[in-house]
Each structure stands twice: as C-alpha cells, then as structure tokens.
C-alpha cells in the first residue's frame, strides 16, 4: 500500500518534470535563436495570447461550439452504438448483417466521406456532428457487441439452473457483465468524437476550436493558433481522464483476489 502510493507519486513527479522540461526547452530554443518563433511560437507568447482570447470571449465561444458538436456526436454514437451493439451481441443474424459496414468503417478513413457529407448536410454543425459520430461509433459498437456476446458461460448456466428466461439472461447477466467493456468503449469513443469534431471544424465551420486553429493558421499567426491547439489537448485529456475514472469505478468488481 505504502509502496503503491510512493510509486504513483513518483510517476506523477516524473511526468510533471518531463512536461516542464519540454516547456522550458521550447522557450529556450527560441530565446537562443535556434528556432524561428514563427514556426513554434513560445510558451510566454502563448500565455499572453491566451489572456487576450480569454478576455475577449473568443476562446470560450470556440470551446462551447466544439463541446456542443462533441456532445451531439457522442450522444448519437452512444445511442446508436450501444443500441446496435446490444442487438448484434444477442442476435447473430444482426451481427452478420452489420459486419460489412463495420469492416468498411475499420478500413476506410472516415474523413474521405467529408465532401459527401458537405453535399448532403452543408457546411457547419450537421456535417461536423456526422463526421464525429462516425469517428466515435466503431469502438462503442464493437465493445458493446463483444461484451454482450461473450457473456460468462458459468453465470449463464447458473441463471438457467434457477429458471432464468432469455430476457433475464440479457438484462441480469449479459448487460451488467458488459458494463466495464462498454465503458472502455466509451472512453475510446470520447477521444475519437473530439478528434472528429476538431478535424471537421478545420475544413468547414464558423466557430469552434478547429475552426479557430485553421483561421489563425491561414493568417500565419502562430502565437494565436497555439491557444486553441493547447485548449484541444487539455479538453481531450480532461474528457478521457473523466471516463477513465468512471471506468475504474464500474470495473471495481472485476478485481480478482485468489485467496
């Protein structure tokens, strides 16, 4: 236990240390004239620009626009992914029918559909949500499917011995047993939904962090561009960490002690 805390603290210290080192190096390579600040900006300049974008409200507007699309896309992906995943996990025929689309999704880059979506849905939020939805769908669907399909055979047999009906086995055995796998799929989905939103915003949007990055990039304003980039990174870390926390909570019963 003591060892455990020590190890965790040590990992935290080392992680922080390497992060700080990179930031300091970043500043130094510019200060000593090794790299032109046009390419990489500097931590100091990014901080200044952060305060500006915070005060004029543009940063918050962009974060909210990105979060809005993100929430819509993730919500849809969760509803469709878990819904279809449960059906596929339970009914082999549904799984077989959906298989070609899943192979499609795995092998074809989703962004390739981008022009098509613009033709159908126009520039802006609907296209962004559609792309991000497709990004997030696969891991949520695949994990739900495998969770339900690989229902523990010992538990199933025990349930049947007490007279369980298929309905009971699905809702009392397969589904609760799948929660940790489904949540793991959600964690992957969250990261991919955010990626999808930002990528889509780079190409066609009038607000959002991706739009902001593209806008300042076209203006060749590296300092300003760095602010939404850092914001995207932080957002990704926070969302994924939150899901990791939920994952650990729902996974607690899977700990096995051989005593």
């Amino acid at each position, binding site marked *: 236990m003591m060892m455990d805390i020590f190890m965790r603290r040590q990992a935290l210290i080392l992680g922080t240390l390497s992060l700080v080192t990179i930031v300091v190096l970043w500043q130094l390579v510019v200060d000593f004239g090794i790299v032109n600040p046009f390419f990489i900006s500097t931590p100091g300049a990014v901080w200044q620009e952060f305060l500006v974008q915070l005060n004029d409200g543009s940063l918050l507007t962009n974060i909210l626009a990105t979060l809005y699309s993100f929430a819509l896309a993730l919500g849809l992906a969760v509803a469709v992914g878990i819904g279809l995943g449960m059906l596929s996990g339970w009914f082999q025929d549904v799984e077989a029918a959906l298989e070609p689309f899943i192979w499609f999704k795995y092998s074809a880059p989703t962004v390739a559909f981008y022009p098509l979506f613009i033709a159908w849905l126009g520039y802006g939020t609907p296209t962004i949500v559609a792309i991000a939805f497709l990004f997030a769908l696969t891991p949520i669907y695949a994990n739900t499917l495998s969770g339900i399909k690989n229902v523990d055979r*010992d538990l199933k047999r025990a349930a049947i011995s007490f007279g369980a009906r298929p309905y009971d086995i699905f809702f009392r055995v397969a589904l609760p047993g799948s929660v940790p796998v489904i949540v793991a799929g959600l964690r992957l989905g969250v990261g991919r939904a955010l990626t999808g939103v930002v990528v889509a915003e780079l190409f066609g949007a009038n607000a959002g962090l991706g739009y902001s990055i593209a806008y300042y990039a076209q203006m060749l304003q590296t300092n300003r561009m760095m602010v939404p980039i850092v914001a995207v990174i932080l957002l990704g870390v926070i969302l994924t960490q939150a899901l990791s926390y939920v994952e650990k909570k729902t996974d607690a019963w899977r700990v096995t002690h051989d005593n």
Partner: protein
Amino acid sequence: MAEIEIRNLGIDYRKPNSDELFAAVDNVNLSVGEGEFVSIVGSSGCGKSTLLLSVAGLVKITRGSITIGGKTVTGPGPDRAVVFQDASLLPWRTVLGNVRFGLEMQRWTGGDLTKQAMSMIKLVGLARFADYYPHQLSGGMRQRVNIARALAVDPEVLLMDEPFGALDAQTREIMGGELLRIWESDKKTALFVTHDIDEAIFLSDKIVVMGRNPGHVKEVITVDLPRPRTPEILDSERFTEFRRRLRAHLAADMAGMHFMEEAA
C-alpha cells in the same frame, strides 16, 4: 416425494468440429431415496458432472429417463437447485444480491425476497458479510454464498457439482462439516459430485462409483456410518475400510486410463 429415479440413462455429446457422437454416459440406473445424501465419485472424464447436470435439467438426455418425485425431468425446475464452483457468483452483486438472484430468477412468491435471502445468509454464517462482493471473500466464503443461493429457493433436491473442488484441503474439511450441519437441519435429497474420497464417505449415505468409456455406474456403496457425523469418524476403522475399498476401485480405473494413454 423427492426421490430421484434414473432409468437407462444415456447422454451423447458431439465431438468438437465433427458430426461424430460419443456417449458421455450410458446405461445408468440409479435410485436416490427421499432425504438421502448420495455422492458420485470417479476419475475425471467418467461423466459424473454430466450425470448431475442432467438431473438439474441443464444437459439434454439422449436415452432413458430421469424422474423426480414421479415427474419426468425436461429442464430446470424449482424443485431442484444447483451449487456450482465459485465462478458462478455474479461478481457485480453483493452476497445478499447473489442469494436473492436465484429467488428473482424463479419469480419466488413465498414472501419478501431480502428476508428469505438474509435468513439463508445467516444459516451459512455470513450475516456480517451480506454487503460484501464476491472478490472480497475467501474461496470458502464464496461457496457458503453458493450454498445459501441454492437453499434460498427451498428446493426438494440439492445438486452439488464439485462445490469444494477449488478449495484447499483444510477449508474443504471445514466446509464438509458445515454442509452436513446445514443439510441435517432439514435433510433434503442431495446429490454430490466429488473426486475426494474422504469427503464422499464423510458426507454420504450412499456412494456411486463411476467408470469411464462410456461413463457408467460400477458400484453403489452404502455408507452405514452413524449420524450425526463428527470429524473423529475420519480416524475410525470402518471409515478406513470404506476408504480402502473406494481407493481400490478408483486405482483400477486410473490404471486402465494410463494403459489407454500409452496405447494411444
């Protein structure tokens, strides 16, 4: 009322990845009287678990019949409950939740489910652990939960499939004593699969010795040791005699097995 009659029972399994069938159990005849405790022993692969699971209604019968209290077994039923090895507890449910599980599946209508579950948890001595999850319990405690779950539905027949197979020798002995204490309180008809000879003698009124290829009944030994039984009985001369007789049976079967493995 709850006697088990097994007549000319045969169970065929399909060989993996082929259409070929092989008999896991064949020509088994066996009677278990009401309130009798009967153990099934035999080397691995003799079909003892298959036999038990067919009485539970979890394995399809190919030939012959099984009746319980005159009613033919066609599937699981509320007159029977099975105690499995500890992997069969729901890891996301507490002790109470697991003992309630059987009652929930049966749509039990005998009163308050939690009250019924708690009285069984008390019976197996886990009252203090009702809110614990299976992974927080020892192997012996998990088996107490399994026994409580089966007893909670108040079956007429208790079926146990190597319930103590995963436990260490010492815990196993304690659990055997506990099982007898619980069983003696209302003497349900009990069928108990084990590969532990001492356990079988200590617990049973009758021991069914099974042989392999296909699984069949070699002999039924009546254990007429007095009840209630205490651990001292393990050192008695009559106990030793039963042990010797069973060992000889199983050793003959094992020898045959080695011979076949060498031939193969």
